[in-house]
């Protein structure tokens, strides 16, 4: 399958004198984390199928700086931001899509003040837009009637008010969307944000991802849908901790769509 993917880089397109419609910002997790790489590939397959003209930065991409900023290292964050902005501005990038809500939030909200003005969308918003514009069609198929619960990523939901795009896509799969007791603006964090992904949690009675997984399990889902590579890891770990990994899958919205379309 891998060989069938078309993943042009900005450098290649630039050399050919072409400008893509959108830059796909892959992010560190999407580039290096084994689980998140599957999400990246699923999204690329959808983009390929919809004939979207896109490119990635490849080795010219660097960490957005989100974990550094949230850990308190404003200097490192701004160094990352300014470097990335320099690259993106040099390519004349106008629109960015990313499957990571942390990159999404940082690029959309914190880069403009440092000279990086782009239209930044999350991949769920982008996919919804493709559907609405008729550039992509979707059929429920394998997910028809399946119980899916959606975990709101903090940096997509509360931080940026995007609650409906991922839900609309799940509904388009003819799946039965079931909400957890804490959802949308009250969604409970998976425990990874604010640079927690990279450290052990402080002393407490429970890990946050376990608490959130318990909320998800209460809905008796067949699939827990995520829209963030870090949430995905945390929820996957939570499901394993509850020894439910054989019954319940944690999948990104892009993977659901790619699977439904048999990509």
């Amino acid at each position: 399958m891998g060989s069938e993917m078309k993943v042009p880089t900005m450098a290649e397109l630039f050399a050919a004198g072409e400008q893509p419609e959108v830059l796909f910002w892959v992010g560190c997790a999407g580039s290096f984390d084994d689980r998140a790489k599957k999400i990246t590939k699923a999204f690329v397959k959808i983009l390929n199928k919809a004939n979207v003209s896109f490119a990635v930065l490849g080795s010219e991409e660097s960490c957005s700086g989100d974990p550094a900023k949230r850990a308190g290292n404003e200097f490192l964050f701004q160094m990352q931001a300014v470097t990335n902005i320099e690259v993106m501005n040099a390519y004349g990038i106008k629109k960015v899509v990313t499957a990571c809500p942390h990159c999404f939030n940082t690029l959309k909200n914190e880069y403009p003040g440092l000279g990086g003005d782009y239209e930044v969308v999350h991949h769920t918003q982008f996919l919804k837009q493709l559907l609405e514009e008729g550039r992509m069609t979707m059929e429920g198929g394998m997910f028809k009637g399946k119980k899916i619960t959606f975990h709101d990523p903090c940096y997509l939901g509360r931080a940026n008010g995007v609650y409906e795009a991922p839900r609309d896509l799940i509904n388009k799969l003819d799946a039965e969307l079931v909400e957890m007791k804490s959802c949308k603006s009250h969604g409970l964090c998976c425990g990874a944000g604010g640079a927690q992904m990279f450290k052990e949690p402080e002393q407490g009675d429970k890990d946050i991802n376990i608490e959130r997984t318990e909320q998800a399990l209460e809905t008796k889902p067949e699939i827990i849908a995520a829209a963030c590579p870090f949430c995905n890891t945390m929820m996957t770990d939570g499901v394993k901790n509850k020894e439910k990994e054989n019954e319940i899958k944690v999948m990104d919205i892009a993977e659901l769509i790619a699977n439904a379309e048999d990509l």
Partner: protein
Amino acid sequence: MEYLANILFALILSSGVFFFARNVKKLLRNIQLGKKVDVTDNKPQRWKNMAKIALGQTKMVVRPIPGLLHILVYVGFVIINLEVLEIILDGLLGTHRIFAGLGALYDVLIASFEVLAFLVIVAVVVFWIRRNVIRLKRFMSPEMKGWPKNDGNLILYIELVLMILFLTMNAADFRLQELGVAHYVKAGSFPISQFLVPVLDGMSAQTLIIIERTAWWLHIVGILCFLNYLYYSKHLHILLAFPNTYFGKLGPKGKFKNSEAVTREVKLMMDPEADPYSATADDAGEPEKFGASDVSDLTRVQLLNAYTCTECGRCTSECPANLTGKKLSPRKIMMDTRDRLEEVGKNLDANKGNFVDDGKQLLDDYISREEIWACTSCNACVEACPVSIDPLSIIMDMRQYLVMEQSAAPSELNTMMGNIENNGAPWPFNQMDRLNWKDES
């Protein structure tokens, strides 16, 4: 002699207002210990936020039961304060029910004050039960022990007593009107206090006048005392909720401010034209401190936030760290900030306006590092706050101080940041391998 009551009233009223003005001055001085921030942008949106969130209570009703009960108390107090205007005029001029001339409208007003007073009593009783009988979890947190708990109950008792005094005053007045006692003009309608009248049955006009006057005086003196209690209490929110929602954060919650001081340094580093030897230390002045370790490093809006917090604990009850037993409680962050600010304020008062180093600061002496590092920056606390307080911004400023001034990040975070610095990812992968996924199956 006949003006004695008027003079006494004027004295009590002016001292009440005088002490309140002094408290307000102190409050403003303390808030101004914080850093200036530009909050002059987008005024229409700011007014809208204040109208919706503070005046319209839109975020209170997210939790319907306490939200509706709170609206009763809120509307009750706002509306019943119209009555305070009459009381003040009567007190100063020696009149009785000066607005009685409004006729039918007056009846409607007094009737609605009575109904609201009754509803306030109901709400206050339910609130008391929630705090002391049901003992809702969010009122039982460690930071709620001692004064915060007593403060919460004291406010309920004061409100209850004020409402009872108001209704007692009206009941006695109503009875005196029925008896046709001079000075007690027939005015008002008493749908609630009429039920208290049987208690007063058989009492002489003299006794009734004593009851009416006592209730009247205690009611207005009570209100003036309550006004001056605010500064020492979480109840300050009844005033500060308005400016606080006005000055609250605009735009997406995920947008954290970029430090301008850092931007200047980064730009200098990235500028190939910049001569590193030309910008010497002597023209740079005192280097700016990064982040916050004490209240004076916070912004005025953050300090206003601290005074506005009414310790309802909605933030803490939604905080993922707190829910899973970690020490972090966003409410405690706000309470600690206020307590430290008050301590600094008292230091200034005791030392003729100069701060004498007390060897303490907000970080460590009030807020521990364990609390600071437990935050997931998920914004649940910010979303939950009914009056637009942002505890997360204080946590982030303190992290910035710890990392940039003290190099005191947890070691795993240092590893993560080292990776970003060296290879552009939080993990130790080579930047040149970022596209390898394309060819992996």
